[in-house]
């Protein structure tokens, strides 16, 4: 990890929905310029963790700091200032159906009023080119795009404002392996070009190995292992071994009725 103050620091984060305690004391640090991938099975709370950091959910206990500043319970202008540091690629891309592709990509630029529509259009086309899409795609509507194109447009939107931190929620889910690898390459390229910090969540190990500097595994509401990507195959953790090898037998029991 570079620098003394982590870009993202989470300590003892708890989040429950009724009696379902999803996060039970998550501790995680993401250094400046580092790419961390949180792995874990479905329903282990990966998306909830991401939403807590983004401020879409509020943890009941614990601390989440961005650049050393506490963000839990933060609102108003301060929250807006923090949100400007973020870019986010959603699992289903979450493109706005009512806007053409270029306005989706340039949404923040248009919304902040910092540039004219012509300038924003030019920036959007640059960002679309960065993810391998031509300017003609800018005039299309989200409903006309394939799954892979939607992810690319979502990535272009996530990097359009050149954020300091980019979050990726299951970036390869629903894509064929080749398109998944293309998206992984684009993520690595965009994050490196921006020099941004990245926090991703996935259960796709090929994706995790490609985009991560460090991997953390979330299980039963806690981070049970974290380490460099090169060390994951010799983690010495039975849960991690079972997960990365995709074995049905092991300490992780799935609720399956045969």
């Amino acid at each position, binding site marked *: 990890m570079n620098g003394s103050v982590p870009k993202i620091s989470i300590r003892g984060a708890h989040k429950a929905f009724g009696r379902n305690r999803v996060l039970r004391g998550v501790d995680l640090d993401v250094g400046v310029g580092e790419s961390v991938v949180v792995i874990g099975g479905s329903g282990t709370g990966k998306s909830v963790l991401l939403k807590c950091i983004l401020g879409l959910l509020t943890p009941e206990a614990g601390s989440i700091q961005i650049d050393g500043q506490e963000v839990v319970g933060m609102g108003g202008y301060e929250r807006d200032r923090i949100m400007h540091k973020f870019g986010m690629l*959603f699992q289903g891309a979450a493109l706005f*159906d009512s806007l053409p592709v270029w306005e989706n990509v340039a949404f*923040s630029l248009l919304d902040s009023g910092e540039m004219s529509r012509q300038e924003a259009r030019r920036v959007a086309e640059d960002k679309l080119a960065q993810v391998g899409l031509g300017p003609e795609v800018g005039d299309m509507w989200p409903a006309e795009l394939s799954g892979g194109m939607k992810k690319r447009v979502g990535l272009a939107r996530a990097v359009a404002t050149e954020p300091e931190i980019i979050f990726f929620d299951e970036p390869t889910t629903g894509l064929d392996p080749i398109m998944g690898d293309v998206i992984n390459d684009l993520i690595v390229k965009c994050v490196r070009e921006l020099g941004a910090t990245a926090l991703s969540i996935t259960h796709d190990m090929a994706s995790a190995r490609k985009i991560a500097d460090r991997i953390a595994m979330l299980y039963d509401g806690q981070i049970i292992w974290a380490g460099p990507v090169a060390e994951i195959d010799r983690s010495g953790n039975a849960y991690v071994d079972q997960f990365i090898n995709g074995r049905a037998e092991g300490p992780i029991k799935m609720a399956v009725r045969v």
Partner: protein
Amino acid sequence: MLADRTTERRLNIPLLSPIGRVFLAFLATAGRLTLFAGASVSHCVRAPFYPRLIGHQMIEIGYYSLPVVGLTAIFTGMVLALQSYTGFSRFNAESAIALVVVLSVTRELGPVLAGLMVAGRIGAAMAAEIGTMRVTEQVDALTTLSANPFKYLVAPRLIAGTLMLPVLVLIADIIGVFGGYLIGVYKLGFNPANYLSQTWDVLETQDVVSGLVKAAVYGFLIALMGCYHGYHSKGGAQGVGQATTNAVVSSSILILSFNYVITALFFGV
């Protein structure tokens, strides 16, 4: 003693607990709705504003609802004239038809029927659109892009609803009275000048103003319920369908309830 207590518990719990659950759920919903309404109104009066989105919603609510509201109004005016005639002719009071048509349309039927038609058309569309945005994470995406969903989605709809319903009702009033005129003059044989002068003579400013105030309140309520149910929808397509139904039903009930309240305020004795 112990047996008595057990029997008492068996008798009480099945009877009281569902009532308690419903009451608590009602209070929770009322609280959530009040907070939602408060946040929405505060975003309506604070910058930044989205004039493009407000304009778009005004066209959607005002212009595109015009055919359905106009048709409802003209047939309502026509039926009112016809029914009044069949009733009043028994007492030789046919001359009161113009009065009944204009007062019924401006005070009650114009705002209520326009409100119910717009609730079905716009309230449902708002709930479906925002609900779909919610379940496909587009609402979360707005937040991550530093755009407040209340400002971007809710405020333009509330402003447009509150401003456009009175315009729609004013047009519905004119069309409704015209419907009554058509029946009165071309079917019942009234003198056109007499019919119009009777209409004009009985009409007071308060009749029209009360209708327009009702319309503004209904427009606000329709947009509020559409946005509230859409914003809180969950569970995919089924959740969006449920939100749409709830938006139409709740806004229709609120329209009918507030109709009484506003009528009592304007004309209560």
